[in-house]
């Protein structure tokens, strides 16, 4: 609700823009709702919150619809999923997806799970990177693995049961080394421990470590995705360094079940257009995000596959039964 007040002054100006836009884009069918609520479980300033809030002004311009961001925090997404599952499928409300909503669904008995939502489209990959202190002796991922083979590695992930933890555990299995995987309460706490050399390496999103990276206090050793990233073309992926682990931290949207094909089509067009928008492109590139549009027909299977992998990992680790 706080958000609406924030947007009120902008509405007038947007209204004019919208009129102009509708006049131009007569071929596209009109979106059924004037105001669309984008919900996230992250609190103001958190990853998904920032993702939505920075996308909204550009999306408004492209789609000719007003957007408001609503933070439904509580239960790591359990509450937001419950609200979304019950919302009307009229294109009026969507939910920002991240791996978190799958972890929460799998790990606790929530009222609604990711299965009760319709994956809409994907927007970004948030690249996970492995980093170390700038003054540490590790120059490549191989150095880290070799060290862990000879001694005992000390690796850090931001949260206990998270995608990041999963990556490190997989890395451990893939290379067969002995390493202590230590978890923290968020990326900030872990960074300190990388900086003061308690930990050999940490893993996190690129956007998260940006300030320390720019200050020259951290060094990125590997990209944990399928490809190198635009922001740091010199840094090889883990696979290139002989560690066969890759992960895709996705950021997209989910809708209530039963959303009409027209609404879905409008979003597919809108998201593709906004990703190509030069002003927005500059912003999201700076934040370390990679555009990764996945259309609706592929996004459902994508989420399902991700969930299967995660479930298998959690079961193998006996975190869940």
């Amino acid at each position, binding site marked *: 609700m706080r958000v609406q007040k924030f947007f009120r002054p902008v509405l007038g100006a947007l209204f004019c823009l919208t009129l102009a836009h509708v006049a131009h884009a007569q071929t596209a069918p009109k979106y059924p709702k004037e105001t669309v609520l984008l919900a996230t479980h992250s609190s103001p300033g958190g990853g998904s919150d920032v993702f939505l809030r920075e996308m909204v002004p550009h999306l408004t311009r492209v789609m000719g619809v007003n957007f408001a961001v609503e933070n439904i925090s509580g239960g790591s997404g359990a509450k937001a999923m419950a609200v979304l599952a019950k919302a009307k499928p009229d294109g009026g409300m969507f939910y920002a997806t991240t791996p978190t909503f799958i972890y929460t669904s799998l790990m606790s008995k929530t009222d609604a799970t990711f299965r009760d939502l319709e994956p809409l489209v994907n927007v970004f990959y948030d690249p996970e990177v492995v980093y170390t202190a700038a003054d540490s002796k590790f120059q490549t991922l191989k150095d880290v693995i070799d060290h862990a083979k000879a001694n005992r590695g000390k690796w850090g992930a931001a949260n206990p049961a998270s995608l990041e*933890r999963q990556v490190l555990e997989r890395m451990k299995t893939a290379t067969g080394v002995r390493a202590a995987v230590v978890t923290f309460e968020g990326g900030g706490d872990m960074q300190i421990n990388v900086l003061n050399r308690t930990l050999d390496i940490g893993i996190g999103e690129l956007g998260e470590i940006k300030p320390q990276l720019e200050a020259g206090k951290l060094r990125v050793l590997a990209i944990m995705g399928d490809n190198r990233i635009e922001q740091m073309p010199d840094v090889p992926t883990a696979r290139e360094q002989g560690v066969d682990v890759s992960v895709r931290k996705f950021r997209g949207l989910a809708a209530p079940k039963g959303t009409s094909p027209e609404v879905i089509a409008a979003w597919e067009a809108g998201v593709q257009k906004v990703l190509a928008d030069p002003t927005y492109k500059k912003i999201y590139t700076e934040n370390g995000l990679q555009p990764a549009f996945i259309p609706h027909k592929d996004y459902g299977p994508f989420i399902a596959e991700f969930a299967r992998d995660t479930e298998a990992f959690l079961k193998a680790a006996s975190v869940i039964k």
Partner: protein
Amino acid sequence: MNELLDMFQAVARTPMIIVAAFAGTAWGIVGGAMPGVSPSIAMALLLPFTYGADPASAVVLLASTYLGAEYGGSIPAILIRTPGTNSAAATVLDGYAMKEQGKAGEALGISLYSTLVGAVFGVLMLLTLTQPLAQVALAFQPQSYVGLGILGLSVIASCSEGSLIKGLMAGVIGLMIATVGTDPVTGVNRFTLDHPDLLSGIPPILVMIGVYAITNLLEQTSTPPWVRTNSNEARLKIPGPLMRARLRLSQVIGCIIGFIEGLTPGGGGAISAFISYNEARRWSKTPEEFGKGAPEGIAAPEASNGAVSATALIPMLGLGIPGSNSAAVLLGGFLIHGMTPGPLLFTKHADIMSGFYAGKVISLLALFVLGYLILRPCIWLVNRPKHYLMSFILALVLSGVYAIHGSLFHVGIAIGFGVIGYVFKILAMPMLPMILGVVLGFMVESNYRRALVLSDGDYMTFIEEPICAGLLGLAVVFLAYSIIRHYRDAEKAKQTGLTA
């Protein structure tokens, strides 16, 4: 000089800090003036409102309330012989005597002036001492945090009024509450009863609102209505130069004792106020006047109260150890905004801390201005029928707790802790140890296990790491000292009991 510039910049960035300092002080005076509403309760009632505010204003609001309440408590102490807060109990002795002599306005003026002197001294100490404590921040490893947490928990020994064993029980119960939620290492759910709202644990702030604000409300149901004040008597007189000179010695005594009590967690305002009163009498040339309306008898405890309201924040901010109920609630205010008091606070949130310090300084000015202006409206409010005041406080708690996370479940948890707090009172269990357990439990457990993962299960790591070893040593010394004091006091009480 740099800090001063930072403070100016912080205020320029968020001018709300000024509003927060004044609003907090005003609410503190009014809240403190209501018998039964202690500074911690006044602050706990405000907590929900700070959620929507920017972090700097939020913590300034709470800290100013603390200061305001320390003065506010002396108003009913002087006017109706009922201390509004525990720490104003010592002020009753000479304050009410002065009022009987028709010098109520003068007594109020001395109280305001002395609180202010104490607070100015306290804030200066806060500004100079907290950051050196936090200097070692970056060197803190998981082991060091374990040492810090244990040092914090050792405070339980000194804040268990009466029974040490009950204090220990309360502390362990607090630790148990802190284990609810997602496990910090494996991520499995513990004690969540499969309820999604419990996944992220029980927020300390709900425990605080429950055991302070709601428990107090429950207790008030069976206490007699408050005595009314005649507002005509209350025309505040700021002491003149002669009187100021006369008060100097007692204020210095109050400041020093308040400073020491503030630094050593667990003491709290009430004790230091009485010690200051005693010391001021011992050093006075006219000790026989004490109890019969001696201005020094107001000045010493009030100066001490003012000093404590600032110096109690030093261990809270620098180490994350709340030594008093009020400091614990202020810590809750920091937590709401994602700031964890402790060694890293000043590194991670330097700009907010500058704002906080600036707010602390502004609140001194606010106390001076508002102490003068707000007296009459304050007395008017306190004179409202008690059943209205109580019903509005209940409505405030119910609305406010919902405002924190928009969850009725959380309102239920707060009410539940209100009941637990009430049961604690009936069983004569001390409350602060439980709060300490809740606040420190997660930090101790997660870092303890983290450290052992890093050391491959070697317990020697806690002694080998120098910061941890030092803090553990400090904890042992502190523990030994408080246990000795505990039994010495008990012995003393037994002896006086026999002679009486």
